[in-house]
């Protein structure tokens, strides 16, 4: 461990490994407005990391800097360093298309393409040439749907439109779609906020199973959810990273007053 690490993140056992993602002094502007102010954070490769904080505090904004989705917003400007496995993702040599294949994303609202279920999952492998033939493609689709816990429900209706599924199924389809390109990190922006409790439970279970295979970062408004599924929690407020550490630590024994206020429901 050569780099300077903050003492909160050093307190876990996994911290001995290199972090998967490392952000240092990241600020984001939308035009003249600063949405993220000097955030430094390290994301473990083996754990689920939760971002919590009141609405508008910049969780989504920060999450989107991690796979450079902010590039698609004309007014957004990012400063600071973000490394994926020690490689600067905003560096000159970084291919953003490659980066997004390595850092997948699942959005708040399920957004399957208006194509068949099969085509939705096959989309990524096709554009990245991951499958040599039809058999291999079938295999990838099946494996991804299985990992996303959707296979049993859709195996007989792969040619049907992805948009015809229920909301929870659509979200798992989007997860399968992200898994299909075999990413290293999966970013999830409030993946359950449009779902009912049963569908939510399914997704949480799924996240549990995906842990270890992928580094997972999840934004959530649901504090119980953060407590249930994550090992590390980051609390954002007004564009700043207020506190970051073990989930159990943050929820039982927050060090900063603002975190305590938020967690106990005094605001947000």
């Amino acid at each position: 461990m050569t780099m300077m690490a903050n003492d909160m993140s050093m307190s876990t056992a996994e911290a001995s490994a290199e972090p998967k993602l490392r952000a240092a002094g990241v600020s984001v502007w939308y035009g003249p407005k600063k949405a993220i102010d000097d955030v430094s954070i390290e994301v473990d490769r083996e754990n689920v990391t939760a971002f919590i904080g009141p609405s508008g505090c910049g969780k989504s904004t920060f999450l989107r800097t991690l796979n450079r989705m902010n590039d698609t917003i004309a007014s957004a400007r990012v400063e600071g360093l973000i490394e994926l496995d020690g490689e600067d993702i905003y560096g000159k040599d970084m291919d953003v298309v490659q980066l997004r294949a390595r850092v997948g994303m699942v959005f708040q609202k399920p957004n399957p393409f208006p194509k068949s279920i099969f085509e939705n999952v096959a989309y990524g492998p096709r554009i990245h040439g991951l499958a040599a033939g039809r058999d291999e493609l079938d295999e990838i689709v099946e494996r991804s749907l299985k990992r996303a816990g959707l296979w049993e429900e859709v195996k007989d209706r792969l040619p049907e439109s992805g948009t015809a599924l229920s909301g929870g199924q659509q979200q798992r389809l989007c997860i399968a779609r992200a898994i299909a390109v075999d990413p290293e990190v999966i970013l999830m922006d409030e993946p359950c906020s449009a779902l009912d409790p049963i569908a939510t439970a399914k997704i949480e279970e799924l996240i549990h199973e995906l842990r270890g295979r992928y580094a997972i970062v999840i934004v959530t408004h649901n504090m119980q959810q953060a407590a249930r599924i994550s090992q590390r929690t980051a609390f954002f407020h007004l564009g700043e990273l207020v506190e970051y550490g073990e989930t159990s630590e943050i929820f039982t024994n927050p060090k900063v007053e603002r975190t305590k206020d938020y967690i106990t429901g005094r605001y947000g």
Partner: protein
Amino acid sequence: MSPLLLFLLVAGVGAVGWLAARARAATFAAAGPGKVRLHSVPTYHGWYVALWAVLPALIFLVAWQVAEPALVAGAALHSPAAAELPADAMNRAAVLQEARDIAAGHIQGGFNPLSTRLAPAFASAAQRYSIMGAVLALLLAFAGGAYAFVRIRPELRARTRVERLVMLLLLVASLIAILTTAGIVFSLLAESVRFFARVSPIEFLTGLQWSPQTAMRADQAGSSGAFGAIPLFWGTIFIGAIIAMIVAIPLGLMSAIYLTQYAHPTARKWLKPALEVLAGVPTVVYGYFAALTVAPMVRQWGEAMGIASSSESALAAGGVMGIMIIPFVSSMADDSLAAVPQSMRDGSLALGATTSETIAKVLVPAALPGIVGGILLAVSRAIGETMIVVMAAGLAANLTANPFASVTTVTAQIVQLLTGDQEFDSAKTLAAFALGLVLFVITLLLNIVALRVVKKYREAYE
């Protein structure tokens, strides 16, 4: 009394009614403070009375304008001079028309002395009926106003009534447009039926020979024209649906894609209206551009390639028409691409797709119904286009797939058939109506299909 003056008088009655009714309604409100509550504010009582005063009178006036000439003529026919009128319908009508014109002061004297003697009868009848009409209209205005005025009460639902009248008015306004269309269709149908009595529909719709030059006299050579319209339909499709679309679809689509997906907002702000200007250029300007600039160029190319070329060509007309309809394709494509939710785009980009992969594999397929709808509308616009083809495509009814040759279209032939001195009951002129009918039906179908496609696609995202 002139119609304008009469109209102003009626409007004046309405205005007086408005003021009076409003004032009266206001006195109700003032009389019992806290006790009487008007259902509607006084202004609505004003409108209620004003509409009652004006609308019936106006409707009467319009009807009167239509009926008056017949009434005047009827009265004039009872005058003693009318007994001498010639019996045959044509002379009779001519004399009556002359008499009417003399009475109105349009002409000084008639060709036929009888008309001069009939004129005073016309003049007096016209005056009588004009005054009668004016008095009736004003009476109606007063009666309508009074009827409404005496019904003003606090609990009168003037607001609801006015609302209903306004709705009625709007309905009538839209009916006028619809009735006009119906009238056009009806006249097309009627004339086409006359045409098909002379030329069989089967020959018209399937014949390969088009030479409508029927002779003026029966003994002239080639007096029976040929009315096989297939070469015209082919020319129309060749120019409007094939050549023009080969130009317009790729250019329109690509500019829409550039404008929605790549262009910087400021670039878009300038380029989009600039592109739409294309739709505003008068078609006659495109026409001479096609005829004077493009056609000679096309001919040179054709000759350089050793293909039979003429100075008017399908390629010149179709190519310029394609440019003209780019905005139709691009603005529909633009709308439907913009309507694809941003989340689709994000979803694709987040999987590591490039922008052009995202466009080709997600956005265009998702927007396809809208794009297809736009193309169908553009086709229907193109096949109805007249000026460019008249000026640049030629009039030779060739059944050829050679774009350098001259072909003719339905619209160009309609112009050709109806310009100049024509007898209006020869097969030649009537053919124009049959062609018009076919064109109308095809465009209508294209529009219906296009709107359906577009609507279905709109629903997909709402």
